[in-house]
């Protein structure tokens, strides 16, 4: 007990001594792990480069200004591709995520012992693997281009959308569903009158939210050849065309800011 009485003096501490020692012990372990990891990273680092990096950074920044504005003409199509990758990828993901979410939600899954674990496994594997890795795989399998990017974004987003969606389905108010059931509605009617109206706002929110993330992610897919503005970024960096690089960064910044603004507007309009 944190409160104790000794010789008539009541003392109070937040934690008892063993609790406190345990806490210190955990802190110690945490710090030890951190230092251990740090040492291993530090071993693999050439500190001379790091010390030199401020000068390098300034040098790089100097070579980046002014951005080569006339290069913009060649960037419109990549930007268009980037947006398409994000949009079409999100649509693809949502189409696949909806049935998976219904299979994964405890209250709507057709079978808890068989279907639900499979759905959960699909969700976890899709979420564990970054879209860039999906893109890397798909470029190897179906060749470079926007199509690989769309599929990569789609595959990565299935898990994200399905997870948030099935959590929303599990949180619905069962009374409303019961009330619909009590009218003698069929399974499909129960779904469309009892469940869908309840998850609609969450669903719309999730889609827009993911679209916003996907814009950001699709800017880099080009690095492995899956289309979009990343392709130009990669080639500009490898040819050391720093003024083009800075322009591309500005364009990415602009695209992301605009997409954030759009998604905020849409979410505001829906909710």
């Amino acid at each position, binding site marked *: *007990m944190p*409160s104790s009485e000794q010789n008539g003096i*009541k003392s*109070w501490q937040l934690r008892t001594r063993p609790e406190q020692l345990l806490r210190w012990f955990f802190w110690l372990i945490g710090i030890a792990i951190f230092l251990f990891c740090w040492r291993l990273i530090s071993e693999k680092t050439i500190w001379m480069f790091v010390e030199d990096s401020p000068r390098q950074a300034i040098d790089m920044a100097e070579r980046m200004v002014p951005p080569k504005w006339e290069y913009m003409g060649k960037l419109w199509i990549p930007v268009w591709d980037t947006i398409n990758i994000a949009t079409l990828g999100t649509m693809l993901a949502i189409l696949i995520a909806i049935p998976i979410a219904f299979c994964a939600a405890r209250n709507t899954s057709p079978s808890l012992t068989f279907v639900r674990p499979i759905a959960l496994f699909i969700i976890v594997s899709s979420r564990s693997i970054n879209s860039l890795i999906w893109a890397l795989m798909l470029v190897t399998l179906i060749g470079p281009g926007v199509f690989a990017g769309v599929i990569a974004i789609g595959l990565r987003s299935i898990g994200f959308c399905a997870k948030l969606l099935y959590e929303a389905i599990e949180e619905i108010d069962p009374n409303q569903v019961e009330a619909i059931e009590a009218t003698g509605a069929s399974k499909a009617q129960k779904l469309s009158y009892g469940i869908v109206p309840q998850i609609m706002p969450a669903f719309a929110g999730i889609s827009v939210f993911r679209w916003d993330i996907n814009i950001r992610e699709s800017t880099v897919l080009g690095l492995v050849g899956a289309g979009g503005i990343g392709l130009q970024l990669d080639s500009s960096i490898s040819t050391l065309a720093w003024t083009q690089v800075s322009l591309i960064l500005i364009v990415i910044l602009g695209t992301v800011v605009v997409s954030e603004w759009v998604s905020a507007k849409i979410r505001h309009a829906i909710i």
Partner: protein
Amino acid sequence: MLRIDKLVKQYKTGDIALKGVSLEIPKGQVLALIGPSGAGKSTVIRCVNRLVEPTEGKIWLNDLELVSLSSAALRRARRRMGMIFQEYALVERLSVMENVLSGRLGYVGFWRSFFRKYPQNDINEAYRLLERVELDHMADKRADELSGGQRQRIGICRALIQNPDLLLVDEPTASLDPKTSRQIMRLICDLCQERQLAAIINIHDVHLAQMFAKRIVGLQEGKIVYDGPPDSLTPDVLTQIYGEEDWEATIEEVEDEEEIEIAMETAGASS
């Protein structure tokens, strides 16, 4: 003891909450501040400890002028004023004891408070107060495990452990049931008497105010419209404060507390 002189508060929105309020409260007096919502009751007491910055006017606590204090001096002055809140305002994730001891924050240094190593005197005082409100067995419970009435009593302990000269009490009974409300009001008044504390109690329940306070101040649209003993609070005065309404039932002479309690309970049972 406390002297408020021509207090004016204009919010950023342009609303003028107080239009020159002057009040003087001697040591040991319990004053009830009544008035409709939006009359400026909360603003008055929040100006006193400057949780709200007054626009104009002066406030003296003993010989100390509060409005012109610098932030460090203000902190020292706040130690002399205990505040009790409407929704108890306990920090819900801290234990009861931590909540009570947080009243000593103005007196102890940062590291002491960070490691919860309070002086033994403070801990003794905390236990004394908890015993006084009959909650010493709850010391190690988390604040969100307590009922409303218990929370408010802990709130009172937190205010009193500051060893204040003045209590600022903001709607102490607004979220409590009638019986607990009376117990809390009685507790506050008893404690004020025991310790010779002055208190300003904001309260919207005229009946409770009449029952417990020796002096009543009526506030209407930021101006004082009544200042006097509870028994000369006539229907005319109430109409002036609150507007037209049948007041006879509200100010029915209160003879015996016991009787009211029974009357209330039977009313509750019949409804």
